């Protein structure tokens, strides 16, 4: 498939992710923790576009987001893996459309993303005590928030992109 990635305007929507990360709107935060915007954009993209484009989009997002933070851990591995997994899932199964399954996928994806960051910080020398104090609340808050937002944002994006893809194809 990968029809969307030939249209520069659809690729450019990915720029919303770093902009939202930088702006970090206060209304969409849970105890100071923002949702994972990368997951919210990557999920519909990968579901429409397939594994290769999904993994590449994950790589691109990861590169942008790693440039925006202080370092110490990278989001690239988790995002690439998620993009590939979601793309495969859409290719090899019945099409995912229900809000509930989108929410569940986003929830699992955010948990994996946060666990990968936690693992990298732990390998980088952070104490387990510090990770428990700071990391666990972030993981819980971000997972909950992303899971709640996914049915709204992801299903709209998915619907829109599916329409565009079918009109591009037909």
């Amino acid at each position: 498939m990968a029809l969307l990635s030939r249209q520069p305007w659809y690729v450019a929507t990915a720029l919303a992710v770093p902009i939202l990360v930088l702006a970090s709107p206060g209304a969409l935060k849970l105890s100071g923790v923002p949702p994972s915007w990368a997951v919210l954009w990557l999920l519909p993209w990968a579901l429409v576009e397939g594994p290769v484009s999904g993994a590449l989009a994950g790589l691109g997002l990861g590169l942008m987001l790693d440039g925006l933070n202080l370092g110490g851990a990278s989001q690239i591995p988790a995002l690439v893996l998620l993009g590939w997994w979601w793309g495969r899932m859409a290719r090899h199964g019945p099409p995912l459309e229900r809000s509930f399954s989108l929410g569940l996928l986003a929830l699992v994806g955010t948990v994996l993303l946060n666990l990968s960051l936690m693992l990298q910080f732990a390998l980088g020398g952070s104490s387990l005590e510090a990770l428990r104090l700071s990391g666990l609340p972030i993981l819980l808050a971000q997972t909950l928030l992303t899971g709640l937002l996914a049915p709204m944002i992801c299903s709209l994006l998915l619907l829109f992109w599916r329409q565009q893809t079918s009109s591009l194809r037909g």
Partner: protein
Amino acid sequence: MAPGRPFRVLSPRLLIQGWPWLVLLLALVGIRLSKGAFLSELYALLSAPFWPGSAQKEWVTSAQQLSDQIQLAQLRLDNERLRTVLELNHANPRLVMAPVISREPGGWWQQLVIGRGELQGLHPGDAVVAPGGLVGRVASVTPVTARVTLLTDTSSQLGVWVGRTQRHGLLTGLGTARPVLRFLEKDPQVRPGDVVVTSPASTLVPPNLTVGVIQAVNDKAVPAPEALVQLSAPIEAVDGVQVMLTGRR
């Protein structure tokens, strides 16, 4: 007194008739013994409407503030002169005001993005202060923005000084709102409420900047005691910061 008349003591009748005078006498003795308590109280009660009011209090407070400010300026000058004589790190670097354009104190990375950069003379390592005290150090700069590592980030480590007990410690971010202060000796003799400032011997940041207040001390920690520090600058609320241009490299 006529001669021959027997010496007469006060007759009981007279005593009974003059009882008000006796009571007055007793009251005066009471006043004397209480060192004039009754009179003072009475005077205070009567003069209360004429006591110094809020206006006088304001004048005195403003005079006190003025005196404090003048003294602070004098001490700053003096400190600067002495540091120049001793060839220590200078305490009064050039300040650049910068707006906070992105704030992420809640996620995995505790950072700010501010709207001043290399063009305004910022360098990585410059100290960043907000109303209230030090908040962090510049991590990287672009032409018009700079990324600030907050003191609460796990990558932040800073030598600090507890003024009351004159002990050094290492302030390390935990990723939570309160960084931990690790002391270098077994018995740092600190207690909650002690003020933490940047180390006078610091080469990374200007000396004697306010950092925060010790909130809790953990004596059981190994190898040396630890303390949780509440930062004095409200990081969640600051919209503008000042960058101290000390980077000489």
